């Protein structure tokens, strides 16, 4: 789920941006930009016991807040990835990881691609 988390602080100092790479079809809705930098509040890659970790869902929550036109094309209103949208974390499909709960490593790169659906 991509619900907005109260712990997110996009302007928090010392955090590493997550790079969200967009396909051309989505770049058109953000003035041609192919890369969005998003900074979740929790430190990416942190694994300390009890520490908050940033997940894919956290990044998508930021996307929802800052770029709703991109978000609604990537996720439906239940918060799930759309059926024919794939999201790769450093080259791996998040569906093959922990989905929305996948914890982000430091300097994560998320790549949005549409699948080869249709005829």
């Amino acid at each position, binding site marked *: 789920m991509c619900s907005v988390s109260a712990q997110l602080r996009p302007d928090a100092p010392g955090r590493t941006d997550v790079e969200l790479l967009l396909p051309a079809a989505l770049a058109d809705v953000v003035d041609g930009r192919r890369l969005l930098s998003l900074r979740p509040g929790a430190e990416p890659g942190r694994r300390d016991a009890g520490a908050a970790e940033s997940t894919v869902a956290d990044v998508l929550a930021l996307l929802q807040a800052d770029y709703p*036109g991109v978000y609604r094309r990537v996720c439906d*209103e239940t918060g799930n990835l759309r059926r024919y949208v794939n999201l790769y974390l450093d080259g791996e499909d998040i569906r093959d990881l922990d989905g929305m709960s996948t914890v982000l490593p430091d300097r994560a790169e998320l790549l949005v691609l549409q699948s080869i*659906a249709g005829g």
Partner: protein
Amino acid sequence: MDAVPKAMPAAEPAAGRHGVATVLAIGTRKGLWLATSSDRRNWELRGPEFPMTEVPSLAFDARSGTPRLLAGVRSEWWGTNVAISDDLGRTWQEPEQAAIAFPEDTGASLERIWQLAPDSTDRPGVVWAGCEPISVFRSEDGGKHFELVRGLWDHPHRTQWGAGYGGPAAHTVLPSPSDDSVHVAISSGGVYRSDDRGGTWDAFNSGIIADFMPEKYPEFGQCVHKVARDAGNPQRLYAQNHGGVYRSDDGGGQWLSIADGLPADFGFVMLAHPTRPDMIWTIPLGSAGERNPPQGRPAVYRSVDAGGSWERFDAGLPAYDFNAVLRDAADVDDADPAGIYFGTRGGEVYASADEGESFTLVAANLPDVLCVRAVAA
């Protein structure tokens, strides 16, 4: 509002004062085309808009000034939204937030917008949307933002409604021009009516057969394909059913067969003349097991006596065509004489400038036509 990417320059409607040019919007499985004509016989075609995007619903909202064109657009990748053009297709805007979205507590997500229906001139900002999964939404701001009609979503019958072949949808929304009633048709759930603008709903299917169910005349569950309202009597409705063609003279309280005189009682289309009482059109298809023009001979059937009798018209139509016409792939304009338009799943679009008596080809070789809407501009 987002600007919408285009594959090629937008259509440029023929210049002219209101009523001089006709604009025909053609929604297909893969994109939107716009055709313009000054005589409804010779057409200029431009498109596609919205490449790789399904356009199953269109509406011209002509209640004030330049008609607003609303398009229910659906990408297999990027989801569904309402796109709006206030300049007859030259430019398009989509709200940044989805125009139609299910509230979180429903756990549902919008699949497809089957119907966009501007309300009467007395309710200038109100637009209704019939959607999949089965639901109705209402906008108060001309189609930029819609709210779920909770009365229908929470209806106790909802869990028992089925899915038509095209998906579980409220495909027809008919707000009354004369009172607070609204009719909705559902495949497969039947006809429902609200008398309080959507607050509460009851099934109105008495007399409509459901020959695919053990009980042939259930309270609900019928697969009604399209409902249209008579121009002269708001209580008179016409329905093309999944097997059966009907008329009701009491707002859906009782339905009577008007299928006699038609070559088949299956089909999707039902059109009513916008100003002339008792004039209607349908486009029959073979039985539910065929779903093509009977014997491959497409024709439009017109009645001028509210379904008491029917007359066949096929001038200008192909002698051999096995492509169906879907429920919203037909429209009637408000000119005099009225124009009739329809598109096929084979991608051909036809127009009639003489109330359906003869047709000319508007376009061919398009993707499956899902929706056509015409307006004088």
